[in-house]
């Protein structure tokens, strides 16, 4: 009979706990948003944060509430955007694919090393020592923090400057935040002009530090018929929305720093 007491007591405690949990799950049930669940199932689940939300569940919840537009998911691309639009009942969603772009061409041929850097092979470490070894204080250090951050193998360092393969890029934005110099930006993939420089130095200083850097000569701004190119702080920038990809700014650039994508 001795064995019965423990069995009854443990059984009773277990049963009680089970009943309490069962009751609690009914009493304190949180109504789940069916739309949000369906949306979450469609999203890639990478939780990359490219949409601007904390992860796929956050984005799904925001979409279900109508706070966020479908089509913000870069890794999912057009297919996911269309599925989200279907679930939300808003019909087909147009989605322009984005890709990262490195705004620097300071390769080994165009810039010099201002010192021999022998520290950790990481941009974030190198940048703490006098801003890095590159002769241009705005330029790419070529140590590949962006390439290490990329989960898709889309970023490569060639001859001391990072390069993004737009075919492989899903625009998750990890390289953008990994670059200590802030050289990488996301932009729509379409025929357009890109200023491949981030130097805000005056023309003379840029000429000394880099063979191709933007000197702010304004020729591109004058050449553009659509008002897409503006020069600010000695650096040209192309507005991807306005750019038609005519290529006149690239022809006008004396430094050949504007490239056509």
């Amino acid at each position, binding site marked *: 009979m001795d064995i019965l007491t423990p069995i009854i*007591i*443990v059984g009773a*405690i277990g049963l009680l*706990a089970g009943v309490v*949990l069962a009751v609690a799950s009914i009493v*304190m049930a*949180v109504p789940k948003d069916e739309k949000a669940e369906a949306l979450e199932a469609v999203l890639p689940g990478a939780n990359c944060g490219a949409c601007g939300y904390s992860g796929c569940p956050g984005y799904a919840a925001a979409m279900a509430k109508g706070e966020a537009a479908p089509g913000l998911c870069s890794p999912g691309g057009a297919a996911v955007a269309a599925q989200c639009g279907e679930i939300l009942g808003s019909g087909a969603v147009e989605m322009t694919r984005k890709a990262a772009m490195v705004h620097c061409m300071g390769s080994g041929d165009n810039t010099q090393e201002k010192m021999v850097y022998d520290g*950790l092979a990481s941009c974030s*470490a190198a940048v703490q020592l006098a801003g890095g070894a590159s002769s241009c204080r705005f330029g790419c250090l070529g140590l590949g923090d962006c390439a290490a951050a990329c989960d898709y193998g889309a970023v490569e360092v060639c001859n001391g400057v990072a390069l993004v393969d737009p075919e492989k890029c899903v625009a998750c934005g990890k390289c953008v935040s990994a670059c200590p110099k802030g050289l990488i930006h996301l932009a729509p993939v379409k025929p357009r002009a890109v200023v491949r420089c981030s130097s805000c130095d005056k023309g003379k200083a840029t000429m000394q530090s880099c063979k191709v850097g933007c000197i702010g000569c304004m020729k591109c701004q004058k050449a553009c018929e659509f008002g897409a190119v503006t020069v600010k702080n000695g650096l040209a920038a192309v507005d991807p929305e306005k750019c038609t990809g005519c290529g006149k700014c690239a022809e006008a650039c004396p430094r050949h720093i504007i490239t056509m994508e």
Partner: protein
Amino acid sequence: MDAQTIRSLVAIFLAAILTENYVLNKFLGICPFLGVSKKLDTAFGMSCAVTVVMVIATAVTWPIYTYILAPNGLEYLQTLVFILVIAALVQLLETALKKYMPPLYNSLGIYLPLITTNCAVLGVTMLVLEKGAADPSFGYLQSLVNAFGSGIGFLVAMLLFAGVRERLEDCDIPATFQGLPITLVAASLVAVSFLGFNGVVDRLAG
């Protein structure tokens, strides 16, 4: 409550944080200590969840042991029953938080289920009973204060260690030591430094 009781409660609270720290002195709860201490904010969230669960678990298991298990001579069942009760409690807490405090639920979300099988929580509930058996004045209130202090001690250890680890990130660590080895070395150094608190509390409150 007289001054003597309050003084002993303060002594219990401080001892639980400093000299009897569950992580650094008793080496319980090492899994979350190493796993979730990479960043300060996640370490803080985890520790808060552990503190809450420790107090609630003690509040429930103490009466169960004292009024159900002990009178029937079933002390040997405490591990089994406590794990059952703690798991159910954590589940209940999670459901309740989800309903009434969604922001808190979202910030603790992932850590709550992890705590279910955290040995530090089980350790607190069992060790307060040991203390109660050794010292009759160590009752329900003292047990709760001890549990709360243990949670705060866990928080202190986690925050200290998260700070240490964030600094380790920027260090040039030899390849052999990278990752877990240097983390364990750092953990042992923090634990050794905590030994310095031995005796401090007794003198403060004694």
